[in-house]
């Protein structure tokens, strides 16, 4: 068997293992969550008898390990349980929201990733010129601004002062793609603003690191053009760190955008999870947690595999 296949198989197995570990952590975490769902549901009318009845009805009187195994088995069947709050299947609650989150993340990534890598290459190609310094100053300020500030500033500029876009990113099922894209324009710009800066700086650093290698000197002494040296000799050897930073940002776009969802009132998964925590809707919290964890594991796995594939020593063993 090719050694790469073995390596990838090992990473996959490790990914499954981490997901299982995460499921334990999430379950334990929701167990120690303060407050009680029954009391939260009943509010003022929480007599001990009513609380006990609800606890029995939700199965909360059973031992934790039993509930954990049930939950795990359910997940393996694709059943994420039933929401405590409105008795709907969690899968139905999560489905639309997840699609919305993934849509926003993909559009933002489609804008941000190519832009960041391009700017990173430009900064290296014109290193230590005004171009590089300008990019550096711009990205540094972008990184320093909190995303809610960027979001509100964009709303102020492009929804209030010049009403070009909607301040509220309202999407609903059945909406046509152009309308959807128009609706998410401002959140996408906000997210791109934050992630491009990070990815661009890391791309620049990764390529510059490679530019110090002796084989770059070889390329220069061949009299090759600078753009060719950066693109052909440096970039392929910097792919592994670039892939890593891109993946971290992709994961952030899926998992970490609650603030942007709130600013633009976007119906994403992050908001759903925050609401679920407030309502002590444990199955929903667990499902969101697992989805976020799976996203991280899956993306990092992809980064690992791609990093392996970009390494010529592993692709072509002796």
């Amino acid at each position: 068997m090719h050694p790469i296949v073995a390596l990838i198989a090992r990473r996959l197995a490790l990914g499954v293992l981490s997901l299982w570990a995460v499921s334990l952590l999430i379950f334990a975490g929701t167990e120690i969550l303060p407050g009680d769902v029954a009391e939260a549901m009943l509010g003022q009318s929480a007599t001990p008898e009513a609380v006990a009845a609800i606890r029995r009805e939700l199965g909360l009187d059973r031992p934790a390990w039993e509930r954990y195994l049930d939950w795990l088995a359910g997940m393996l069947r694709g059943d994420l349980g039933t929401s405590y709050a409105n008795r709907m299947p969690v899968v139905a609650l999560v489905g639309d929201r997840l699609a919305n989150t993934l849509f926003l993340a993909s559009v933002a990534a489609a804008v941000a990733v190519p832009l960041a890598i391009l700017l990173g290459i430009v900064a290296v190609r014109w290193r230590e010129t005004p171009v590089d310094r300008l990019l550096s100053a711009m990205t540094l300020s972008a990184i320093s601004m909190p995303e809610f500030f960027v979001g509100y500033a964009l709303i102020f500029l492009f929804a209030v002062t010049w009403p070009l876009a909607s301040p509220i990113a309202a999407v609903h099922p059945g909406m046509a793609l152009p309308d959807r894209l128009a609706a998410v324009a401002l959140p996408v710009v906000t997210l791109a603003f934050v992630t491009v800066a990070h990815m661009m700086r890391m791309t620049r650093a990764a390529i510059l690191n490679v530019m110090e290698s002796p084989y770059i000197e070889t390329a220069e002494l061949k009299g090759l053009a600078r753009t060719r040296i950066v693109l052909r000799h440096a970039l392929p050897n910097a792919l592994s760190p670039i892939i890593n930073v891109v993946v971290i940002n992709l994961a952030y776009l899926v998992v970490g955008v609650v603030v942007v969802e709130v600013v633009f009132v976007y119906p994403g998964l992050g908001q759903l999870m925050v609401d679920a925590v407030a309502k002590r809707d444990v199955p929903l919290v667990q499902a969101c947690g697992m989805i976020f964890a799976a996203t991280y594991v899956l993306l990092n796995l992809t980064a690992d595999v791609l990093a392996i594939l970009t390494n010529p020593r592993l692709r072509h063993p002796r």
Partner: protein
Amino acid sequence: MSLLLEIRDLHVEALGEDGRWHEIVGGVSVTLERSRVLGLIGESGAGKSTLGLAALGYARRGVRLARGSIRLDGEELLGAPYERLREIRGRRVTYVAQSAAAAFNPAFRIEDQCIEAAVAHGLMDEAEARAEARRLFAKLRLPDPETFGRRYPHQVSGGQLQRAMTVMALVPRPDLVVFDEPTTALDVTTQIEVLAAIKTAIEGEDLAAIYITHDLALVVQIAHRILVLKDGRAVEEGETSEILERPRQPYTRALVHLRRRFRPERPRPAEPPLLEVRGVEAAYGAVRVLEDVDLALWRGRTVAVVGESGSGKTTLARVVTGLLPPRRGEVRLDGRPLQPSYRRRSRDDLRRIQLVYQMPDVALNPRQTVEEIVGRPLTFYFDVRGTARRRRVEELLDAVELPASFADRYPAELSGGQKQRVAIARALAAEPEVMICDEVTSALDVQVADAVLALLLELQARTGIAYLYITHDLATVKAIADEIVVMLRGRVVESGPKSEVLAPPHHPYTELLLSSVPEMETGWLDRILRRRGHRAAPVAGNAPAEAGRMP
């Protein structure tokens, strides 16, 4: 003959840590005619590479060609626009780097890199360039020239890659090639193969070359003229034979006479050996690196363990010191078996065997002063502290010919040779009976290395210490050994008193090693190649498995 390269009064400056420019090459002039080879020789830091790169109008980051003149065929390169320099680099002047392993891009196939310059400059189309590369692969005797270039750099040996780098430099059919220490990173047997390949490559191709090295014996094999550099200045210049026979400057004279050190062999004493290695077999995991190794070392004598990289020399040192417990066999000290692992050896057993490493840069803790470094074994083994310890540290520094004031310095403030002396002083502090020297001079410049060898000999005469001296350099062996153990792929292939091992008949591998040591005379390379019939020489590079089949 027309003048191809003319460097006049070149000054090169480097940006120091203080933010100022410091001169690193001060007013050097070089002239080179077509079809001639100029040898540039000097120690590290003498400015050889800087000067070689200047021939391409190139200076590394933080270095600038300050003033003077660099003319190629009459055209001034110093101050020429970048685009003009680009047209010259890789087309009219090419470069072969010291470490081909680092100078090849790991992400591309060898042949693609060899033809890149010629195609990018529009000198030939891709098919022509590939044909030319394959012709040169064959000429430099690389295996399977038609398919060799399809491999990636990590898939071939160091010697093969160095030859491929020469091909890369030759494909554009340049007027001038700069070879920057092209064989320094190679084993001795591989080194002469590459040197011979370069020599044939230059001879047929109507080009001039600058050959940079710190090894005079190498450069005299290939260069018509030699320029000696020291501290960024030209010390002496002349025809090769002139430099060899009538060196005028003391520095050049020292270089010429360096390799002539020879210690007469002393008779083996009648007493039993001090250190004995018996039937040792050792492995890292599943990889067996030592097989059935025997060795004996007498008090006050030196055994040289010789072999190429990968032959198991350093592993043997690790077994003797207990860092790597052997799978089988034993190490005896004074007739008594030692514990296999250093963890279980008594403090006194540990004290009696000390190890000095190849790289003094990494063997000394950068955060400790020399006093702490040398004083640590004094406290550990003899419980010497305070002023008594300081006094003893100063004595030890004196023994390795360093001033007492060095006790307060940090390793970063010392040169390579001084660091190695501190490492030796640290080993001596334990008052050992056996000192294992693992390639202790191979990271040092020739002159510094020679001084360290002289120090080791002097210490032995004074204290009666025994050395287990690990090296791949037979010149060093001749200089200091009483006995020689030749290792190949984890086995001892020949051993005995120096006079016996160095005298014929040899084991074929010993013969190969011996005949690969460059001698300080002009015709040596041609003679040795003729004697080997040039056919018997290894083509496959420096992997010991391959070298073992030779000649």
